[in-house]
């Protein structure tokens, strides 16, 4: 296992990804010994190149897996590629990974939620415009994913080769669709929430003020009657009439 403490805070998501590469490679090696660039190709075809790997990452990861006793060099193939094989410890680690839920206790940093948090009340920033421009991008990404998904479904239904890869790719695409959907729903919610809050802020701000046609009550009592008006939702006029 990596020690997260050794990583700088900014590399947390890189750490998460490197964890899934480790287990991804172990999962592929469980099907039999493989060499580095072969692992890279298979990893990518399983995930539709959603998370591209370079060969360097594969060899670095293999070296660490070997150091941790999870894989061992397993000779060479006919073409002279160094093969790696999963060890019993590696197999145990892999199955433990399948059974263990993905850790949600340390949510990865999300640029969008940071951006919206910063946009609340920021001078000169129209937060609804921020939300709409994100919604545009999010829905457009969903349109692209959905088109790719329709293609993947068609490929599976037509029974073309590599069905296992197509199914894996479909699952990855659908994960992206559900994730963007959650983001779009959350944006809708943020907008509705902000509209509701600004409405109640406006009505709270309007209510304490004296109606223009009146000369105005004594200044000392205005804030108090305003508070009453806001608290009881009664129009200020009713209070004034009673006071008269």
């Amino acid at each position, binding site marked *: 296992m990596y020690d997260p403490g050794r990583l700088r805070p900014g590399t947390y998501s890189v750490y998460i990804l490197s964890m899934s590469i480790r287990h991804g490679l172990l999962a592929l090696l469980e099907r039999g010994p493989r060499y580095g660039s072969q692992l890279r190709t298979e990893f*990518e075809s399983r995930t*539709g*190149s*959603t998370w*591209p790997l370079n060969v360097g990452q594969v060899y670095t990861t293999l070296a660490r897996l070997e150091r941790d006793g999870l894989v061992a060099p397993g000779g060479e193939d006919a073409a002279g590629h160094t093969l790696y094989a999963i060890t019993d410890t590696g197999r145990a680690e892999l199955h433990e990974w399948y059974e263990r839920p993905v850790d949600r206790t340390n949510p990865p940093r999300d640029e969008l939620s940071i951006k919206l948090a910063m946009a609340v009340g920021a001078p000169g920033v129209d937060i609804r415009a921020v939300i*709409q421009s994100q*919604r*545009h991008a*999010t*829905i*457009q*990404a*969903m*349109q*692209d*994913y*959905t*088109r*790719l998904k*329709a*293609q993947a*479904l068609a490929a599976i239904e037509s029974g073309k080769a590599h069905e296992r890869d197509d199914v894996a*790719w479909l699952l990855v695409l659908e994960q992206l*669709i*559900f994730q*963007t*959907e959650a983001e*779009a*729903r959350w944006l*809708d919610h943020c*907008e*509705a929430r902000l509209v509701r809050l600004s409405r109640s802020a406006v009505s709270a701000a309007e209510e304490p003020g004296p109606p223009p046609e009146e000369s105005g009550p004594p200044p000392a009592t205005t804030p108090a009657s305003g508070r009453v008006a806001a608290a009881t939702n009664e129009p200020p006029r009713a209070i004034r009439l009673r006071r008269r």
Partner: protein
Amino acid sequence: MPDQHTQRPVLQLEKLVRTHGSGATEVHALRGIDLAVHPGELVAVMGPSGSGKSTLLTLAGGLDAPSSGRVIVEGTDLTTASRKQLAALRRRSIGYVFQDYNLIPALTAAENVALPRELDGVSARKARACALAALEEMNLGQLADRFPDEMSGGQQQRVAIARALVGDRRLVLADEPTGALDSETGESVLALLRSRCDAGAAGILVTHEPRFAAWADRVVFLRDGSVVDETMRSGADSLLSGRAAGL
């Protein structure tokens, strides 16, 4: 989408305004909408409730008249058409799909699909042949002799899409067609709508579900009766360039 924009739009909305009431109680349901839907195109309309989505669909289908502006379907302006022309246009050119399917319970799937043709004066035998062909084309042939209560919600909705597009009709107006369906069935309905548009129909889909809107070529966002934004299909076929290159 090969050169679809050189073709005449199936539906064209021009400066469409709909105002309910007047004076202090005046409500602006739509404030000047321009929208064109071409053959082969599926346009999704999204927006919070009260933003004017359903009003837009009602006007596009000639079920209500705009306060000002024009609605042009297959070249005919609904706002200046006679009552008779309007009825004929609604029968021949426009198909509706509603959330609650709206199939006639006493008729089989084939009879439901044949009905618009029969109302249009086509002989019963021809209308049935036309209905069977439409059902067959959408892989629904096995449902032809079933009554609505013998079909699942998803099957009924797919039959409703067949009815909406039977014969020469190629404008389908769908108001929350997936609203009463579970997510997987909703998706099969969207896939059918998508494939009918790919085959040359023009569609408007009103939905509040981003995942279903994502099947559209364009997503239009309404707010307070105005279009605030719209997405286009991205030019590059994919965000995931590596995979798309291999497809």
